[in-house]
């Protein structure tokens, strides 16, 4: 299979929406995220059957099922290794991975660094709500220090992970943040992430209406949000991006933190080159055992 060329407007957002009814609570931020994904995919225009959408476990990880793409709702924390296997097996696919902050930065935290250094063309969307929702309200890796939850009844003693600094530090080529406070902006950011040739990371502040804190609901997020383009941030400036990313948790910067202006070749593209080079003069598979003949 090779990527289908489509004409603009050939696909509408609704073409990516499945018939499954989400399990999410009314008002959950993830409803906006899936809407943003429908719009972004329609804008990019790849047919749903050429999209593979992989997730781990958690409320947000149910998301592939709500699209008409090929979905794979895998095991906790392992969306990224599986997504990489898919992309390497068939680089023509558009591969999305998604999950929550616990899935990505706690149980699966070890995988992100390696995907980044490989620079495989996968877009990874984290729905960050600072809480474990599916298991009913435990401390997550992005919960603020001092936060009381059912597993931190006297307040958390841990500092949170900063997802933005984390991926910037490992050298991700595209790093952005979005939020349901600006759906159009989220759709545009996701589209840009998908179009970026290489690993792209989008942290979405997606409020948990059931276990989230007041300050992290839509109203609270609006109060601290600021558009990166409006403040004149240059997305080609990685150090400026890291500087801004330090304010994760206090401010909600929306838009692109960093986008490598000269994207290096992706791992999947290099693999194709290697396959093409080495395939010349290969022994037919039926004769593979000739390699063991000793003369």
């Amino acid at each position, binding site marked *: 299979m090779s990527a289908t060329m489509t004409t603009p407007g050939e696909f509408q957002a609704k073409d990516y929406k499945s018939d499954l009814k989400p399990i999410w609570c009314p008002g959950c931020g993830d409803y906006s995220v899936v809407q943003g994904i429908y719009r972004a995919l329609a804008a990019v225009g790849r047919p749903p059957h050429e999209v593979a959408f992989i997730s781990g476990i958690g409320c947000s990880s149910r998301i592939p099922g709500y699209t008409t793409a090929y*979905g794979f709702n895998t095991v906790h924390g392992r969306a990224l290794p599986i997504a990489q296997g898919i992309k390497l097996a068939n680089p*023509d696919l558009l591969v999305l991975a998604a999950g929550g902050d616990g899935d990505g930065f706690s149980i699966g935290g070890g*995988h992100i660094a390696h995907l980044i250094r490989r620079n495989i063309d996968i877009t990874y969307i984290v729905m960050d709500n600072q809480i474990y929702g599916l298991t009913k309200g435990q401390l997550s890796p992005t919960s603020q220090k001092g936060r009381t939850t059912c597993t931190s009844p006297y307040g958390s003693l841990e500092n949170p992970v900063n997802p933005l600094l984390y991926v910037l530090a490992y050298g991700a080529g595209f790093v952005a943040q979005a939020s349901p406070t600006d759906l159009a902006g989220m759709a545009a950011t996701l589209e840009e992430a998908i179009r970026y040739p290489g690993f792209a990371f989008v942290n979405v502040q997606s409020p948990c209406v059931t276990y989230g804190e007041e300050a992290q609901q839509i109203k609270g997020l609006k109060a601290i949000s600021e558009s990166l383009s409006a403040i004149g941030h240059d997305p080609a400036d990685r150090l400026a991006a890291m500087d801004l990313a330090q304010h994760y948790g206090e401010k909600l910067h929306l838009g692109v933190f960093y986008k490598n202006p000269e994207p290096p070749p992706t791992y999947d593209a290099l693999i194709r080159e290697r396959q093409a080079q080495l395939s010349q003069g290969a022994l037919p598979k039926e004769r593979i055992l000739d390699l063991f003949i000793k003369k």
Partner: protein
Amino acid sequence: MRKDLVFGMAGSGGDGIVSAGDSLLQAASAEGYHGVMTKSFGSQIRGGESSCRVRISTDPVLNPGGNLDVAVALNWEDFLKFGAELPVAGTTVVIYEAATGVPENQIPLVGVTPLQVIAVPIAAMAKETAGTERAKNTVVLGLIAGWFGIGGEAVMKGISKKLAKKSQELVEANQKAFDAGVAFAKSHPLKADMTVVPSSSKGAVKLLTDGNDMCAAAALFAGCQFFGGYPITPSTEIMQFFTNHVWKYGGAVLQAEDEIAGIGAAVGASFAGKKSMTATSGPGLSLKSEMMGLASIAELPLVIVDVQRGGPSTGLPTKTEQSDLFAAAFSAHGDVIRPVLAPTSVADMFRTTVEAFNIAEYYQTPVIILSDQEIASRKETLDPIDTSTFKIINRLVPAGADLQDYKRFKQTENHISPISHPGMLGGTYLASGIEHVESGAPTNSGSVHQRMNDKRIKKLDPLKERKDLFEITGNPDAPLALVAWGSVAGVCREALQMAQAEGLDVKLMVPYLLYPVAEQTYRDFFASVQKGLVVEQSHLAQTFKVLRMHLDLPKGLQSLARSGANPFLPGEIVAALHHLLSELQRSHEGKLQPQE
């Protein structure tokens, strides 16, 4: 003259004793002999003790052999570390380094008087002829050529080929060292003639390789296009061989950040429609178990090779054991059956691996190949394999009507549903680790769960009818029996021949399919059995227990089990069979007594 010789050699890491074994085996192979070589090491990377065992025969070799015919000790400390792996008997010729200072009548082998003991100034000869002690292994090869008649020209041809790339001087130095070894042997003849009968098949094409390389080659032949894995002894060579070649066939390898990511990538590649595999050893198998469950419930084909080593935990990383059967059959939670296959030699690693891919693809299931350190690292000479006789099975892909309202997990008569993959128009679905209805949509329904478990478990039932996954030899009605798999099967094959030659009425079952347990095949086999042994390298006797879990075993069936790194010898199995026979005869005599 001899038809079969077993050499065991040990030294410290830098002595090149394993490379001497390699040269010997290659030369023997070039001269038309059959051969097997196993290696054993301490777990040090450099230095430390290393050993090899080379068996050379005019007939096909069934296993690395029992007691040594020839023992070579470059120093006693290292030799003794291998204990039962290098057993010296009254029939053994012992050759050792004179510089150890040990008198010939005081060698440190307790309770055994070897046939002959010869101290040879190996290091001194190397230094004198080649100018360096590094040529010790070449002197040893010269001694072997002189005393046992193996590999005269062929050894030096092989060595020259290897060294010519470095320098001609090195080749000449080694030739001198080799000649000195031959000359020493000629001037110190053995008490008994132990030269090997010339092979009748000199010049025939032979293959020479080990189990790990064979496994990777077979996977390529079967059409595997993706390997995801993480380095772990003793399985790593599978990934290494694969990554040397798979790109040529449009495939890829991901050396992942950990064992879980390795199998995860392989699961992903399978979801994407490619034949896919991972390989590991015990600790890695433990880590991969959650992903194996995912592949089972998502019904994704996948081959997982577990090259067993001593466990639990890090255990004995460089030694063989058969203690992962429980883990292969039962690890990962939930009600699930995963087929488990086991090769018995390098030769049948090819067939077993191709079969594993066929089963994985046909039944849409993960399949585990239980190899072991011995098969993985031992080198065998093999007759060429006609690959055209092997059938390759690909997964059932939906077409035409299947793609109208496609249901990925559709209930079918044989419980196998056509499987689409990303890129296929009309085939989109949600794969998941969560229970699902036929379309793939998640469910919590108990009745659906019951039906889907039924589907996933019953689809594998036909495997249990596969008689070709069992090798049964000997008189079908024999009252005595042996059961063994993996590398231990080869020892039992030889024990069977020896026992039959001694007049015992015995048969042998070698299962290639370990799980699911083919109940009827075992029942048929056990029907005539009054006494027997399940022979395995597992302290817990895992095979015996798995069989007992599924079957009512004959009362006289016993377990002969012990921990890994303690090889079974054919002779001890024959002795055990004699013992069983005498028990049997006693119980028969007992029955003749009036029963009042």
